[in-house]
C-alpha cells in the first residue's frame, strides 16, 4: 500500500520536474535567441563599427609606406 503511494509520488514528482525542465529549456531558447538578435541590432552595433574611425587615423601613416591593401 505505502509502496504504491511512494511510487505514485515519485512518478508525479518526476513528471512535474520533467515538465518544469522542459519549459525552462524552451524559455532559454527564446531568451537566448532574443538576446542574440538584440545584440545584432544596428543600435547595438553602432559603437563597435564607429571604432574604425579612430583606428583609421592610427594606421594612416603606416599605410603610406606601401601597404598592399591600401586602395
Amino acid at each position, binding site marked *: 500500500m505505502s509502496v504504491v503511494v511512494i511510487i505514485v509520488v515519485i512518478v508525479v514528482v518526476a513528471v512535474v520536474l520533467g515538465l518544469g525542465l522542459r519549459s525552462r529549456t524552451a524559455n532559454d531558447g527564446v531568451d*537566448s*535567441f532574443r*538576446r*542574440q*538578435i*538584440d*545584440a*545584432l*541590432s*544596428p543600435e*547595438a*552595433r553602432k*559603437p*563597435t*563599427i564607429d*571604432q*574604425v574611425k*579612430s*583606428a583609421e587615423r*592610427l*594606421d594612416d601613416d*603606416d599605410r603610406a609606406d*606601401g*601597404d*598592399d*591593401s591600401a*586602395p
Partner: protein
Amino acid sequence: MARDLAIDLGTANTLVYMKGRGIVLNEPSVIALNRQTGEVLATGREAWQMIGRTPGYIVAVRPLRGGAITDFEITERMIRLLLQRVGVSRFTRPKVVICVPSAITEVERRAVTDAARRAGAADANLIEQPMAAAIGADLPIDEPVGNMVIDIGGGTSETAVISLGGIVALEAVRVGSFDIDAAIQNYVRREHGIAIGERTAEEIKVAIGSADPTHDENQAEVRGRDLMTGLPKTVLLTPEEVRFAIEDVISSIVSSVIRCLSKAPPELSQDFLVRGMYLVGGGGLLRGLAERIERETEVPVKMSNVPLEAVVLGAGHVIEHYEALKGMFMGARR
C-alpha cells in the same frame, strides 16, 4: 586585466580588434623564416617587404595563402607571435574570437583554436568570415530578410546569404585576388617574355587591373627580367591585356556568386533585388568588379564603406557582446 581579442586571420592581411579599444593591429599575413634553423626572422609588414627579395637561406611565406593551412607549425607560430605582440601572456588570459575561411577543415579549425589556447587564450572560438563581414558591414542581419555578402580576399572568395543572425546559404571557393596576381605574372611571361615577381604583379593589378572596361584607362610600364637575355627590361602593358589575362579568375569568382544566389530560398532571393549584395574584402576593390557582378547577376552590388575592416569589426562586435553572441561560434549551432 586581460582585454579580449578578435582576430581576422586573412590569407593576405591579419587584423586584431581589442575589446573596448578597436583595431590595434593591421598587417600582412606573412612570416619570414630561416630555412636552415626554422627560426622566425620577421612577421607582418617587415616580412612582406622581403617577399621575392630574400637570399637563399630566408623564406618569406603566407601560411594561409590558399585559404587552407598548409603548414600547421608555421601557422601556430604566427598566431603565437601575433598574440604576444598585442600583449597576451600566461598571466593575462583573454578570450579570443578568430575568423577563418569557412572552407577550412575540422582538423585545421582545431589547429587554430589550440594554437590560440597554447599562446595564452583562456578560450578560443571561431566564426565564419562572411558572417563576421555581414555584422561589420552593418547589414540588417537581425531581421528576417535576405542579406547577401561577397568577401573577396587574397586566397578565397566567400559569398553568403544571412538572415536572422544565421547563415542560410554559403559558397566558398579557393580563388581570390592572389590568383589575379598569378594570372598577370603568367601572361607577362608568356606574351612579353619577361619574368616579374608577385609583388610587381600585384602593383599592376591595383594600378591598371579591371574586371570590366572603365572610364579612365592607363597603360603601365612593367619592369622585369628578360627571359631570353636575362637582363632587366621594361615593357608596356595595356588595361585590355590585363583584363584578358585575368578573365578566367574573374569568371570563376562571378560563377561562385551565382551559385550562392541559386542556393537561396525564393523568399530571400527577391530581397536581393531591392537590397542588393554587399562587396567586401581587398579583392572586391578591383576596378569594374562590382559592375561586372551586377551585369551578370542583374542584382545591384554595393561596396561596403569598410571593405578591409568589415570582418574584424564583425568579430570585434562578437567579442564586445560575448555572452549574447556565443551561439554564433562555429560548432555552437546544430
